[in-house]
C-alpha cells in the first residue's frame, strides 16, 4: 500500500546535491509555481490539498497561512521549525539529511505564496552536522538562481538562513522558538497575540514544521486535489513515521494516511513485527507527548474498529481510550518493557526541559518526576498513584504552553491503562 511522494527519491545516490536532485525532476514545482502561478494560486492549492501541520498539532496549513496579517506594512517571515527534539521523533532529521533540496524547494514555494522575503530554518542545536548540509544546499540553489535575487528571472527574491538552537526542547514550541531566534531566553510567549500578527521581531510570521514545508513542493507538482485524494477523510496525503522501540525494523517510513496500525507494526514493509517474537505490550503512537495505549487499544478502538494511522482514528475514544498522531514518533514496547520505568524516564525529560516560567509546569514536572523516581526505586506509597493523577490534572490545561499538557498526558495515560503495574511496583 501507499505511495511515497516525499521519500520516493531518497535512495538515489547523490540526491543531496543540486545536480542529481534537479536531474530527477527536482525544482520543477518551484519553477511551475513561480513562473505559472500567482502567490494566491499556490496558497489555494495548499488549501485544497488538505495538508495538515506535521509538527504535532495537525493544524490545517492552508488555514494557518490565511491567518497571516497581510495588511501590516512590516516585513513577513516564514520560520521552518527544525527543532525536532521530541523523544521518539526523528523524521525531520532524516529528511534534511537526505533531501535538503526538497525542503529548500518547499520553503521557496511557501515564501512565494506568503509574500515572504526572508526565511529562517531554526534547527536543533544537536543537529550541527545538518547545518553544513543545509547551507551547502542553499549555496547550490543560489548559484543556480533558485534562491537569492530575482529567482528564475521573476520579481521574487528570497534569502534563507539556518539558525541553530542551543539544545532546548522547549525552543520547538513556536513562540519560544521565535524568542530564541531573536536572541532571547527561549520562554514561550503568552498568546494572544499569535505569530500570524506578532511573530518574529513583532512582524507577521508563519511557523511550520520541516515535513509540512517539504510537502508543499509535491503538492504543487501534483495539484492540491490530487494530493487530497491520497489518505483518508481529513487526514490527506502521506506522513513520515519514525518507528522505534522493540521492533525488527526501526526507521523512518512514509505511509499513506489511513494505513492500519496493525499492518504498520507487523508488515515487513514497515516495522516488521516485534523483535525476538515477543508480544506487543503498548505503543506511544505520536511522539513522547501523546498518551500511551495498550496493545488491544492501539490495534482496535474501544468500539472494535481497527485503528488506522490517521489524525481521527488515533484520537478516537478521546483521553479514555485514544491517543494522537502527533509528530509521528511511533514508540513500540514489547511484553518485557516496564511501563513505570518508562513513564519515569519520560517525566525526567519533561522536568529537565520545562522552561520554568509557569508554576504548574515548573513545580509539577519536578514533583511527578520525584514521585515516579520513588516508585521505580521501591519507595512508593499506594497513595502516590492517585497523587500523580491529581498532579497531572493540576498541570493539564493550566499552563502557558502545551509542554505542561505534554508532561501530564504520559503520566495520566500510563496510570489509566497500567495502574496494576504501578501497584505491583509499590507492593514488592
Amino acid at each position, binding site marked *: 500500500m501507499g505511495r511515497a511522494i516525499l521519500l520516493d527519491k531518497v535512495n538515489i545516490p547523490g540526491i543531496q546535491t543540486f545536480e542529481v536532485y534537479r536531474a530527477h525532476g527536482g525544482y520543477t514545482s518551484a519553477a511551475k509555481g513561480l513562473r505559472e502561478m500567482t502567490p494566491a494560486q499556490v496558497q489555494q492549492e495548499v488549501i485544497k490539498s488538505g495538508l495538515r501541520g506535521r509538527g504535532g498539532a495537525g493544524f490545517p496549513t492552508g488555514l494557518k497561512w490565511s491567518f497571516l496579517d497581510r495588511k501590516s506594512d512590516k516585513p513577513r517571515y516564514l520560520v521552518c521549525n527544525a527543532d525536532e527534539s521530541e523523544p521518539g521523533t526523528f523524521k525531520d532529521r532524516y529528511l534534511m539529511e537526505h533531501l535538503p533540496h526538497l525542503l529548500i524547494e518547499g520553503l521557496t514555494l511557501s515564501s512565494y505564496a506568503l509574500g515572504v522575503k526572508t526565511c529562517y530554518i531554526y534547527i536543533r542545536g544537536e543537529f550541527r552536522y545538518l547545518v553544513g548540509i543545509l547551507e551547502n544546499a542553499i549555496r547550490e540553489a543560489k548559484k543556480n538562481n533558485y534562491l537569492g535575487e530575482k529567482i528564475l528571472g521573476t520579481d521574487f527574491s528570497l534569502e534563507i538562513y539556518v539558525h541553530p538552537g542551543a539544545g*532546548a526542547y*522547549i525552543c520547538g514550541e513556536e513562540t519560544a522558538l521565535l524568542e530564541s531566534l531573536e536572541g532571547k*531566553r527561549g520562554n514561550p510567549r*503568552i498568546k*494572544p497575540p499569535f505569530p500570524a500578527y506578532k511573530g518574529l521581531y513583532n512582524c507577521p510570521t508563519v511557523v511550520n514544521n520541516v515535513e509540512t514545508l517539504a510537502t508543499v513542493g509535491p503538492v504543487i507538482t501534483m495539484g492540491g486535489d490530487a494530493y487530497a485524494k491520497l489518505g483518508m477523510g481529513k487526514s490527506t496525503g502521506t506522513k513520515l513515521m519514525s518507528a522505534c522501540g522493540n521492533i525488527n525494523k526501526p526507521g523512518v517510513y512514509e505511509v499513506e494516511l489511513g494505513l492500519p496500525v496493525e499492518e504498520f507494526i507487523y508488515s515487513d514493509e514497515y516495522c516488521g513485527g516485534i523483535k525476538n517474537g515477543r508480544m506487543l505490550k503498548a505503543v506511544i503512537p505520536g511522539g513522547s507527548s501523546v498518551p500511551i495505549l495498550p496493545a488491544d487499544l492501539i490495534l482496535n478502538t474501544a468500539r472494535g474498529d481497527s485503528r488506522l494511522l490517521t489524525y481521527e482514528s488515533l484520537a478516537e475514544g478521546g483521553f479514555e481510550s485514544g491517543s494522537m498522531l502527533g509528530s509521528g514518533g511511533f514508540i513500540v514496547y514489547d511484553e518485557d518493557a516496564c511501563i513505570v520505568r518508562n513513564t519515569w524516564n519520560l517525566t525526567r525529560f519533561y*522536568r*529537565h*526541559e*520545562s*522552561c*520554568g*516560567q*509557569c*508554576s*504548574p509546569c*515548573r*513545580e*509539577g*514536572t*519536578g*514533583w511527578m518526576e*520525584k*514521585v515516579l523516581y*520513588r516508585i521505580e526505586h521501591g519507595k512508593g506509597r499506594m*497513595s502516590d498513584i492517585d*497523587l500523580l493523577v491529581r498532579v497531572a*490534572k*493540576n498541570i493539564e*490545561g*493550566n*499552563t*502557558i504552553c502545551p509542554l505542561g499538557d505534554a508532561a501530564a498526558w504520559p503520566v495520566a495515560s500510563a496510570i489509566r491503562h497500567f495502574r496494576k503495574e504501578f501497584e505491583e511496583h509499590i507492593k514488592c
Partner: protein
Amino acid sequence: MLKVIIDNIEIQVEEGTTILQAARMIGGKVVPPAMCYYSKLKDSGGKCRSCLVKVVKGSAKDPRPVPKLVASCSTPVQDGMVVENTLSAEVQEARKGVVEMLLINHPLDCPVCDQAGECDLQDLSFGFGMEETETIEPRREYPGIDIGPLIKLNMNRCIHCYRCVLAAEQLTKKRAHGMLYRGDTMEISTFIQTAIDNDFSGNMIDVCPVGALTDRTFRFRSRVWFLNPMDARRECGKCSGKVVAWMFGKEIYRITGRKDQFGEVEEFICNECRFEKKDINDWVIEGPRKIKRQSVISSNHYEQMKKGSIIHPIEGTTEPQE
C-alpha cells in the same frame, strides 16, 4: 466601551482592558489573586497562574465558552464576555492546585521571614491552600548568594514571578540580574555575582510578592505588625519622595513605596529615600497609611492616631510630635 460580566456583576470597560483589570474596577471578592502581574511593569503576568478564571461566554459575537481556564491578567475583555471567578468550582479547584504547586518547594519559614505579615503567598495560602502537605520529598534549596549590601536574596522563597527582573529592566539603567537555568532549577541570580547597585534597584524589594528579596537595612529588626506605617514625603530630585515610613515610636525602621489595595506601589521610589533617609527629620509625616482591615498590620490600631501624632504600639500611648 465593552460590556463584561464577572461573577454576575456587569461593568463597562475600555477596549484592551484585561479581565483582571475589569475585576479590580469592580473590586471586592471578585478580584482574582495576582502573584506575578504588576500593572506598573510592562509585560508582567501570565506566569504564576493564580489568576486563572473561567470564560463561560467568549463574547456577544462568539458566545462559545473558552475550553481552558485563562489567565485573567493577560486576557483582554471582549464585548459581551461572561467570566466566572468565585462562582466556578473549576476555578477554585485549579487555584488550589496552583497554590499547592507554589508551596511544594517553598520553605515555609514564615517565623523567620521578614515578609511575614505582608506576604502575598501567605495570603494566597490562607485563602486557597490545603491544610496538609502531600509531599515527602525534600524541598529545593539553593546555595545563598550575596547580591550586595542593600538587598537580601533568599532564593528558596522565590516564586519565579519575574517581577524583579522586569523592575530592574524597566526602572534601572542596567539590569545586572536575571533568570538563570530552567524548569524547577531556575533561579534569580546576578550575572557573575555583581552587586545590584543602582538608583532604583530597591524597588525590586517592593515588587517581590514574597520574602525572596528583602531590605538588608531592615532585616530582622522588627516584625512588620509591630510598626506603624505612615505616609511620609520629602523633596527628592530622583523620585516623587512619597513613601511609607514604617515607624516604632519616633524611629523609622524602614522606608517602602506606597502600596495600594492590590499590593502594588503607587510610585517607584529611589534608593536614597529608601535606604539612606532613616531619620524622622528627613521626612514630613502626612498621617497613617491605610492598610487592609484584614491585615495583621491593621491589628495594632495605629490608624486611631491623629495626623501629626505618633503612637507607641505596645503601650498604646500617643505622644505629640515635636
